[in-house]
């Protein structure tokens, strides 16, 4: 298994699940693919179909309306799959904390492996989060 996990760590394909963000985190995620940060160095590739994904990048708060859909996307992904929550929205509901339709327990919707706080988080922080995930996979 260790050999397989090292292969997996070197080839994480990410799929972008937009919960209900203000869209700023999503723009920051796109920064990762630009020449300055270039996460393809680590074998990370942005894929368009959830069937090809290894990592789900979830942004935004989980509200009543989006939570079932996020759960469904998680179920559609082939296992093993990892979830990285991007932004303070996902980890601490951020500026939407008094909103009436927030799902209180997000971990009951999908299991989340890594949180990246920040509003929006810097691309460096996201790279660090993914590097942590790679570290966990490598043991």
């Amino acid at each position: 298994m260790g050999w397989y996990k090292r292969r997996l760590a070197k080839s994480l394909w990410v799929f972008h699940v937009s919960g209900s963000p203000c869209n700023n985190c999503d723009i920051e995620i796109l920064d990762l693919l630009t020449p300055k940060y270039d996460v393809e160095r680590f074998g990370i590739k942005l894929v368009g179909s959830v069937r090809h994904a290894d990592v789900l990048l979830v942004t935004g708060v989980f509200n009543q309306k989006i939570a079932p859909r996020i759960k469904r996307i998680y179920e559609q992904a082939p296992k093993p799959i990892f979830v990285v929550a991007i932004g303070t929205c996902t980890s601490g509901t951020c500026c939407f904390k008094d909103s009436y339709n927030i799902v209180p327990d997000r971990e009951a919707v999908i299991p989340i492996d890594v949180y990246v706080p920040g509003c929006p988080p810097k691309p460096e922080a996201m790279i660090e989060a993914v590097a942590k995930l790679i570290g966990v996979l490598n043991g």
Partner: protein
Amino acid sequence: MKASIGWLLFAILIFPGLFFTGVLGLIVGWLDRKVSARVQYRVGPPFSQNFNDFFKLLGKETIIVRNGIHSLFVIAPLVALGSTVLIATLVGITLFQWLGVANDFGDLIVIMYLMMVFSVMVILGGSASGNVYSSLGAGREIKLLLADELAFILVCLVAVIKAGYTFRLDAILATQQAQGMFIASPSGAIAFIVGLLCLQAKMTLPPFHISEAETEIVEGPLMEYSGPLLGFWKLSQAMLWVALPFLLIALFLGGFTVEGYGILWSLLKYVGIVVVMILIKNTNPRIRIDTALHFFWKILTPLAFLATILAVLGV
């Protein structure tokens, strides 16, 4: 020496078939990503990247979609892989003549059929997955096949005519070794350029990645594939990076020589074709399907036809 069963199995599974082409294809896939990254001022993935991708896909879960046709969905990538292996073997046996076996395998018509089988499997696999985007992609693949097929057949015909009306790949090679490469003549040069663009469309590389269009219909036919089945698709696409340029080299560039500096020259031919394809891929945006049809039917097919006429006239 006559070909025995054991030798045939070796040719199909190890060299120049599955193993050799697979490994070389994945390496060329890395070259593709690396050169693309350098064109975009990025660093690009490490050398082992495509191998990691492939082995990772082998260990993922395979999801079979409920509202699709299950058997077809599973069979399509396997048959596609098989046909790619056969193309690679047929072309490879003829190109690497030093295997020292009487080779009358390389029949051009069989190779053209097998290339069509690959496209048909993409179409079947895409339409069997019960997804709207996949069937859209499959439909576009049909149109693309209709667009490039005629031009490609004419291109092959040029080599056939110049070799004295024979469809055997080894005879085409032998003629070139006797009289020099076909690309040196006007008809050969035109046919080579048209053939290069046809390969671009056959491998659905940009600007002809109309059927896969990631940003628009999300990889089209491959959208619902996951795990090992996706891995087989990716492997056969990687193997096309080897098999099709090899075919073009056999048809117009006089094959490979393996003595002395000939090796370098052979390598240069292959890497040259691949890099030109990567550069075309990186400098062109995706075109619409009607533009592709226009381009192939109104520009490339007449050009290929002209090359055929020139070849008949002996120019």
